[in-house]
């Protein structure tokens, strides 16, 4: 059976894996994004932040979180999925947890970078006009940092699409189980086609995400700062 005939016969199965894979990445990055945004905003400080007891604490926790999440990124993916298995079992939960852990660093890094890239003069004039810290964060800092944050989310998604395959090792959703099965029986009928289809499937998911990001960026970047 040639590759295209194989894909034709397995199409329903492949589309289902594709949707699973897409959702797995979306939910994991969503969780990581929520954590990183919340942490990044709460722990944000800059030159204009008034000195208080909490300032060193916030700087410390932020840097600590960055170091921890970057260290997590160096854990081999197969090992992390395996290590979570005793605690979280098999399937979707440990898969989402592991992928979320991997996504935190790129997103948090860009939340921090984006927020600190906001011009001091803009913040000083906002303070001088009587905008409180919450209003400043929501109507000034976050919108201005958004393009940088969004590119962090995009990098996280691209990293995670590949790593998500490993979820197959613990019966997680997505192309992983299909890929591992194909690899195990390499040499037998259609095994190579199965591996190739799963690999290309990941690329298709990545391409769909690129389109999504193009649209999101187009519609969420404020007009005054669009390049």
């Amino acid at each position, binding site marked *: 059976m040639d590759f295209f005939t194989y894909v034709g016969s397995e199409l329903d199965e492949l589309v289902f894996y594709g949707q699973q894979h897409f959702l797995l990445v979306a939910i994991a990055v969503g969780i990581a994004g929520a954590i990183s945004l919340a942490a990044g905003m709460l722990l944000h400080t800059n030159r204009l932040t008034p000195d208080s007891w909490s300032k060193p604490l916030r700087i410390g926790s932020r840097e600590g979180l960055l170091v921890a999440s970057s260290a997590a990124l160096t854990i081999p993916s197969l090992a992390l999925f395996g290590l979570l298995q005793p605690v979280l079992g098999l399937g979707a939960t440990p898969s989402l947890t592991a992928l979320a852990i991997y996504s935190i660093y790129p997103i948090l890094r860009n939340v921090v970078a984006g927020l600190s890239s906001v011009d001091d*003069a803009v*913040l000083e004039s906002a303070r*001088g006009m*009587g*905008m409180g810290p919450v209003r400043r964060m929501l109507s000034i800092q976050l919108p201005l940092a958004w393009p940088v944050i969004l590119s962090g989310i995009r990098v996280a998604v691209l990293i995670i699409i590949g790593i998500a395959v490993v979820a197959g090792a613990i019966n997680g959703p997505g192309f992983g189980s299909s890929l591992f099965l194909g690899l195990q029986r390499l040499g037998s009928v259609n095994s190579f086609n199965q591996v190739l289809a799963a690999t290309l499937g990941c690329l298709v998911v990545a391409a769909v995400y690129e389109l999504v990001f193009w649209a999101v960026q187009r519609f969420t970047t404020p007009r005054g700062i669009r390049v």
Partner: protein
Amino acid sequence: MSDSGKPMIALEGISKTYPKAAAPAVQELNLEVPEGTISMFIGPSGCGKTTTLKMMNRLIEPTTGRILLDGEDVTTVNADELRRRIGYVIQQVGLFPHFTIADNIAVVPKILGWDRNRITARVDELLHLVGLEPKDYRDRYPRQLSGGQQQRIGVARGLAADPSVMLMDEPFGAIDPITRDRLQDEFLELQQQIAKTICFVTHDLSEAVKLGDRIAVFGPGGTLQQYDTPDNVLTHPANEFVGEFVGSGAAVRRLSLLELSRLELQSVGLDGTGERNGAPTYEADAEGRPVRWAYLPGTQARPKLVTVPHTGTVYDAVDVMLDSQTELVGVVDGEQRLQGALWWKDLVEGLKTKGQA
């Protein structure tokens, strides 16, 4: 420039010592800015002039002392609410790049919960006031504007909620000299209309002399060395520090304080209408505009007739004389009619102002 004498904003015994700093940045400062006047804060770098300004809207909290806004002690009220009552304009402007010009101006009115029609009307009014056509600029973004236009918007934004006090931190410092000069002139015209109480930090003595009703000279350690009218600061420096700071150019700078309309000028006559009795006479064209000198007492030379408007200052007259290398200049009114003449030798022999015999 109504000077009712009532202080609109006042500092009483204000000091600021930064944590871990040995010496205070501002020390025991007392300062009253009368309603509707402009006070210029000037001094060498690090003398606390910006710190003092920022303590007025509590961007920097004073260590000791009281701040009074229109007689009300605002030292401990909610700082954000206080800042909405005080206009604030900074050198780098700090417009919000993702807001349109209209939205930038409307920031404080929106926070204060004005209704939409009132905000739109106010934005258009302010754009007119700073000389930008509302329909052309309202929907633009800050990056589409030049530096000078951005600072105009910065001033309009500071004025948005009609605050009684404006704090301006070197607003024209980053603008090229020609535009700066024009903005200063516009600023003075604007102040004629709005009569705000303004505190204005500058490092440019000419700017301080040109714009200020009063000048506050700050010295080392955040101390106020002198707080007086520009004329007094230039002619009667309170101490050696101020004298040195004002420097050797003081006499020349004073020239720009003296408006020609306030001077007793030498009278001049239209040639052929009277005796040539010691006053210069001139020939005029059909509309009565002076063309050339016809007679000058005591000399046969007939220098070119150059004029300067009576709204100008002695500085402008000197500039015209040096430029055209003549020793007298005609002072004209708005319709180009000659009002009188000013001689070079008058400058060194002492200028007479009107009402002074």
